[in-house]
């Protein structure tokens, strides 16, 4: 079947299988920042923004995204870069594998929550696992990012 999606501002018409997940569609299109970390929607690595909301692309059918706007980390522009800069400056860019999903979730959080507390930040990001950092540095990076914007 054919779907029309807009990825990072670009309109695409893609042939997909009915049971295909949007994660695989995006990777096939060359958006390698979208990654599968588990098979049970429990790690948050595959997070993308659909119409601005974070969703897990490994558990969302491509067909469901027909007509919707998708943002991957490649499309986060200056804001994504600024957050990335904060992450790098705090040294929490360790293996980097979970970072795209993490960055997208933080950007969505920024739009949803006004002046979030540490507990609210942790709650919002609970589903985004990271095995390298111990999360403390990530929190420092988020704080720095939120204070700057």
């Amino acid at each position: 079947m054919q779907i029309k999606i807009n990825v990072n501002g670009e309109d695409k018409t893609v042939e997909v299988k009915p049971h295909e997940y949007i994660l695989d569609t995006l990777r096939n299109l060359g958006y390698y920042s979208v990654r599968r970390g588990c098979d049970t929607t429990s790690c948050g690595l595959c997070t993308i923004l659909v119409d601005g909301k974070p969703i897990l692309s490994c558990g969302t059918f491509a067909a469901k995204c027909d007509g919707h706007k998708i943002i991957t980390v490649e499309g986060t522009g200056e804001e994504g870069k600024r957050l990335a800069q904060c992450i790098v400056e705090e040294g929490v860019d360790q293996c980097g594998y979970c970072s795209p999903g993490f960055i997208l979730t933080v950007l969505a959080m920024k739009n949803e929550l006004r002046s979030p507390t540490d507990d609210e930040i942790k709650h919002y990001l609970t589903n985004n696992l990271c095995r390298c950092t111990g999360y403390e540095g990530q929190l420092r990076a988020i704080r720095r990012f939120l204070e700057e914007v």
Partner: protein
Amino acid sequence: MKEVTRSIPKVDGLGLILGKPVYTDDLAPKNTLIVKILRSPHAFARIKSINTDIAKKVPGVECILTHEDAPKNRYTRAGQAYPETSPQDTYILDEYVRYVGDDVAIIAATSEESAEKAKKLIKVEYEVLEPILDIEKSEGNSTIIHPEDDSVCLVDSVGYDPSKNVVCKHIFDYGDVDKVLSESDLVLERTYHTQSSHQGFMETYRSATHLDEHGRLVVLSSTQVPFHVRRSLAKAFDMPIGQIRVIKPRVGGGYGGKQSANTEYYPALVTLKTGKPAKIIFTRQENFEAGLPRLPMRLDIKVGANNDGRITAIDLKAIGGSGAHGEHANSVLFATVMKVINLYNKVDAARYRGTGVYTNTVPTGAFRGFGATQGVFALENTINEIAEKLNIDPTVIHDMNMIKQGECAIRFDCNGVKNTGPYEIMQSCGLEQCVKRGKELIGWDEKFPGKQVAPNKFRGVGMAIARQGSGVPYQDMGSATLKLNEDGTFMLLIGATDIGQGSDTILSQICAEAVGIKTEDITVLSSDTDLTPFDSGAYASSTTYVTGNAVKKTGEKMRKMIIEEAARILNVPVRSINFDKGKITIDGISKNMTLGELGKTLLYAQKELIASDSYVCYKSPPPYIAAFAEVEVNTDTGKVFVENFVGVVDIGTPINPTLAKIQAEGGILHGIGMALHEEVRMNDKGKMETNSFMTYKVPTRKDFGNIIVEFDDSYEPSGPYGAKSVGEVTLNTSAPAIREAIYNAVGVRINSLPMTPEKVLMALKNKDRV
């Protein structure tokens, strides 16, 4: 020092996190064959027959390979230096399957769907055998897990005896333990169980293979040990090493798990059979069921002490479960003594008996902390209990007995052979200051032992210390090659493997310091066996110390070459040349030269400047940690929550304090996960029950309170600019410190990991009954 001890951002940071295609699957050739594995449903069985006729007819299937098609050369997947001490007990595909999840057949197809469909159509007839699932029942069992006669160990002293299911046996002695224990005022005897836990890296095991234009096998792999992978592949396929190239792209986490080659053989076999590119990507389930988690252990320990608080003797016995293959068991059990008992070097006697055994469960391997984690849990638990029995503050009993700066480590006799080797002197050991500072940070004097904060909530504090090493002495080697470009910048080629810890960055910093340039002027190429010099790989906390020293030597060589060449070109004596920040000046003369000018002059008409050097470590200076946990225990639910965890760490001089801090915080959290949540668990048929992130509970950011890390500023004379290692040591103290904190909160001690709410609640019930 200008470039080291500076918290510069990682050299590859922005590209990594903004999604540049840098990982194995991003770089794998397009349109490769997709490789899938048919796995055993039985814990132990012999394959009687495999029928692939129908499966092969599925459109898109390129080949289906069984044990009849695979080479019969025994190898080990473990990736340590040579000679490898793990037994060579593995075929790419074997007639026997030894755990649920063991490989039975390799399917290669043009699409994942075809491969999966074919997988379901393969018919296998098994002769099901009685498995051994319990590490305590393995040694000498009538069931023999490796009955074949061609499994061997290259090193005799390991004590490999497959007829008894024994992978290795260790006998270490220092003094007369029985005598000292009998003369001690107090002897505490305890048994502990540490669980198997999984590294849980985010990028699952994966690799891709193809043949290059010369017909050589090229392997892209998410690995910590590219050079050992090359050696292992050469052995498995009986190929010359020069016919194999292993490239390590960016790695999505390893923590020891990728110190073994796990996936490489499968696509390699397909590529060699078909000539076509192939790749395999483990699913998360495969990653758990066929991964290489930590060795579970049973630890029996006796510790003697006198009433004045002096620890007199330590007698430790460990059984470590190696699973279906013997990967790393020998070195893990070795770490259990060498990196543990020496915390208390003032004892009169010590003894260690370690045994690694086969079981019909998932093969185990390296995991951050190695065997030290398990041993420290047993030893520190017991020391804490002794402190209580003698009514001495644990921080005081630790301070009295622990190893200190300038002291010698214990020299063990091994297998009855007297140790006459050199004494290992602690030239840097900041444990004393670490304990002192940690006490302040946690507020020990106000909080010890604990208090009630609500009708059902109790808080307590606990502490523990640990050490690790920095590389394996006389074995681990790193190398570096440095080239001057014509614009005055440099290419640093290193075999060391950046798996996220930031070694490309800190090695660049060390290099820049040695040459006398800026880190930004260096471009790193790491871990391609064709292009970069040899390195043992990223394990044993070796990269900063071992490869760091190699890089320092190489940088110093380059500096000397630059000065000599500048003197020659400028026609002045060498001693009059000054070289700093990329500028060459001459004493008393206004003439000068930039590095770019030197580079251009040399490269276009004279010669290329290449410096290269290696470093093998002859000692392994231990990093140390003193850790303090503050927990809250809910007596209604048994839930333990770590409110605060303080780790004060002596890693020598940190090359990059920010990166070191993040590594320490991550290590501590691994330890908290191991202490409270994480467990690789099988059912009574050997099927893994914890094979996803739903059931295997790595901590989320809501599962703990605060982690506070500080570094003690010591200086290790043998390290590059004073540095030791940081990778592993931080994990080791979490479990024993938390266990003691639980005791100080609610008065129960848990002797098996993880300390789940069920176990705490049960212990509380039993305590009430008493």
